């Protein structure tokens, strides 16, 4: 039971000033950082990708509103306005295949908001990243539509579908043309390796999808636009919405083992650059792993959390059953976040790390 003196509008304690930061403002900044990458993806994949994005956001906002109403929340409009559900939807949309059928965003929104967030008690209470819960649940339940990638417009031999055709594809009334379908670079490498073709041959075959730095490549919305996502992420660090700890640790946790593996056996291990530019590495490091609610708040906790995500991602990509492992790695480390916070508290001024007071200093 919350003590009554901690609520209500007649608060008397200091401070009587505020920096002016708001939850809504924070969420809007993150969305702003996602805009360039999202627009780039729309350009790459055309109308279907826009429809996927729009419906995912709408679905998340809709389920959030429904849950707040069912819970009898006193100010549902105020909560909706904080943009947290929209941001969850946006991040989920960026991890979906760009031409996914309509029910994927709807179901994804339901899983993310209802199961991933509201059953835990709403904003700030969930243990796992809602977007990643939805992404993993969809991937495990419906592997085929979740791994049907298409060639980006610039690489495709077919012209981009118009709005009418896009709607048909979106509603599932028209199949995706075979000529458009392709594997993602990580998926391709995994399949070839499992067929016994080593990377030196498979990647030089000429059919291999490239993990190009400029982002024109096969993948989900948030996979293709890695450089723009990187720019967005750096912007968030610059305006101090996120700290550098988690992104740097994720990228280091992924790149260092990848570089070592590749140096030891290039035929079996992809190089660090491919790892960093593929899959959800950049999106994950800057936007997913840094989710406030599900990541640690202490500097040391953040570093270990990020390193864990990067390293687990590399393990899953290299030896796991799935070509991409960022979502699993994030969920795994989400579970450890409260423990990391507890175990790696910052040092209190005047105390040692273990909480004992410092010894009195000797004569200076």
């Amino acid at each position: 039971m919350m003590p009554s003196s901690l609520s209500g509008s007649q608060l008397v304690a200091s401070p009587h000033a505020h920096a002016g930061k708001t939850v809504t403002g924070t969420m809007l900044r993150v969305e702003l950082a996602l805009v360039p990458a999202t627009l780039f993806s729309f350009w790459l994949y055309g109308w279907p990708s826009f429809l996927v994005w729009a419906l995912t956001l709408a679905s998340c906002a809709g389920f959030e509103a429904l849950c707040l109403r069912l819970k009898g929340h006193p100010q549902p409009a105020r909560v909706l306005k904080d943009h947290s559900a929209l941001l969850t939807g946006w991040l989920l949309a960026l991890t979906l295949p760009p031409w996914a059928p309509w029910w994927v965003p709807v179901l994804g929104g339901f899983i993310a908001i209802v199961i991933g967030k509201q059953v835990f008690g709403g904003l700030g209470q969930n243990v796992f990243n809602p977007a990643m819960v939805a992404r993993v649940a969809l991937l495990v339940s419906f592997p085929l539509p979740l791994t049907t990638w298409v060639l980006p417009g610039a690489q495709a031999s077919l012209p981009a579908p118009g709005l009418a055709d896009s709607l048909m594809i979106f509603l599932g009334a028209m199949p995706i043309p075979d000529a458009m379908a392709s594997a993602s670079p990580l998926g391709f490498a995994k399949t070839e390796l499992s067929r016994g073709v080593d990377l030196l041959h498979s990647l030089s075959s000429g059919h291999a999808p490239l993990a190009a730095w400029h982002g024109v490549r096969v993948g989900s919305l948030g996979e293709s636009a890695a450089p723009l996502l990187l720019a967005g992420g750096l912007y968030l660090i610059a305006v101090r919405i996120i700290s550098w700890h988690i992104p740097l640790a994720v990228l280091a946790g992924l790149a260092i083992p990848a570089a070592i593996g590749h140096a030891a056996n290039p035929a079996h291990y992809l190089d660090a650059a491919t790892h960093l530019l593929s899959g959800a590495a950049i999106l994950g490091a800057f936007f997913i792993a840094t989710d406030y609610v599900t990541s640690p708040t202490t500097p040391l906790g953040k570093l270990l959390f990020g390193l864990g995500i990067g390293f687990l991602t590399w393990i899953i990509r290299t030896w796991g059953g799935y070509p991409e492992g960022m979502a699993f790695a994030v969920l795994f480390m989400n579970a450890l976040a409260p423990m990391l916070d507890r175990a790696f508290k910052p040092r209190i001024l005047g105390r040692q790390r273990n909480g004992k007071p410092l010894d009195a200093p000797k004569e200076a």
Partner: protein
Amino acid sequence: MNLRTLLDKLLGSADWGIHPDDHKRPGADAPVRVMPAPSRLYLPLSQHSGAPARPIVLVGQKVKKGECLAEAQGMVSAPVHAPTSGTVLAVADVTAPHPSGLAMPAIMLEPDGLDEWIELKGCDDPFALSPAEINKKVAAAGVVGMGGGTFPSAVKLTGANRAGIHTVIINGGECEPYLSCDDVLMRTQAAGIVAGVRLIVHASGAKRALIGIEDNKPEAIAAMQAAAAGYDTVRVCPVPARFPMGFDKQMVKTLTGIEVPADGRSFDAGVLVNNVGTALAVWQAVAEGRPLVSRLVTLGGACVNAPGNIDVPLGALAEDVLAFAGGLKGDGLGLARRVIGGPMMGAQVQHWRVPVMKGVSGILALDAKEARLEDASDCIRCGSCVEACPMGLLPSDMAANIRKEALGEAVELGLKDCIACGCCAYVCPSSIPLVQHFTYAKNELAARDRATLRMEATKKLAQAREARLAREAQEKAEAAARRKAERAAAAAKTAAAAEASKQGEPT
């Protein structure tokens, strides 16, 4: 640089505190206005930490400016002097400048308008005095920590001397937004402050003094450097403007690199911290024999007509100060919060009828935009508070535990190290009143401690009573047994005597 400092730097925990808008100008640049005594003065008996002073004047008595009205009682206390000449009207209650709005006893003085001083006994060469003599003069003048701590200065000096400190830290940080009274004091009275600093060094037995001034006060830094030139024991050190730089632990660490242990005081680390205002008051007390009867107060906030610094006689009501200094815009239309002190740590009051005391540094009339009265929303665990906390605590986790009444957990997380500086609440995007949580928890814990003590005392009394009853019963029983034995013995004796006499009779 040792491993600990390196780790702190690397992890960003060396980057503590916040950089609030300082709102210090134009108030800091306005000339000081000297306020004459208003029609009534209310001099609380508790203007310092420690025991309240004890009145030594009678109702109706005429007093002169600087005359002692109430004397210190107990080890930690300070006397109260008349800020002007006049008549003692009563010892009455006045509202304390505290959010509770509780009453506190105060001596009510009616000024006679003459402002007539008692004869002040100065001292031509204060540096010839022994530390004990200096302390005596400082104590008699009622000097307390002017930065808001209000700890009696003489007690502090004596303690520092006994502890054998090596460095005196003079705090000219004034990190609270709006406030500029220390800034103005340093600009206008630099010579007096530096003299006071040297006297404190002399009295405390230290080797040197470091004066820390935030770099947003270039005029003060220049004035103080000019005044300190030529004295190699005194050094003026500009420090980065950052809140809460003015806290002693933060200031000591910034200036000397020494980290005061969590359970210790600055003395234990070999330093003594004093405010610039205190240094000046010490100098005036010793060199001029002048007791503490007035102080500089900053008037600020968007709702005041003429922000600036005012030399206020102690005991004047904030209402009178406002009336003297230009009042509120539109007669207080748009006033959202009345604050005594700075916006970060000051006290919100419900009305202006509260007296200016020795530790009052500001009177702020804030509008809704400045005070940002927002309702709290859910914590999103963004960690802004963790980043801002100058003590290295986890404010969000502490607050979460306090909300579910798990005060033990909160203490485990470092609640007792919290200095209530307000950085966490200042940066919180959800506008959670974190300081309110911590204040609540600290008060609740103190109440529980008191309850535990009371229970233990009651238990002890009950046990003592039981023991006493048992002892009394036993004593009674023993006495009864003794009496019985005595009676038996006496009976046996008489019987024996009777037997003997019977035997003795010839047949």
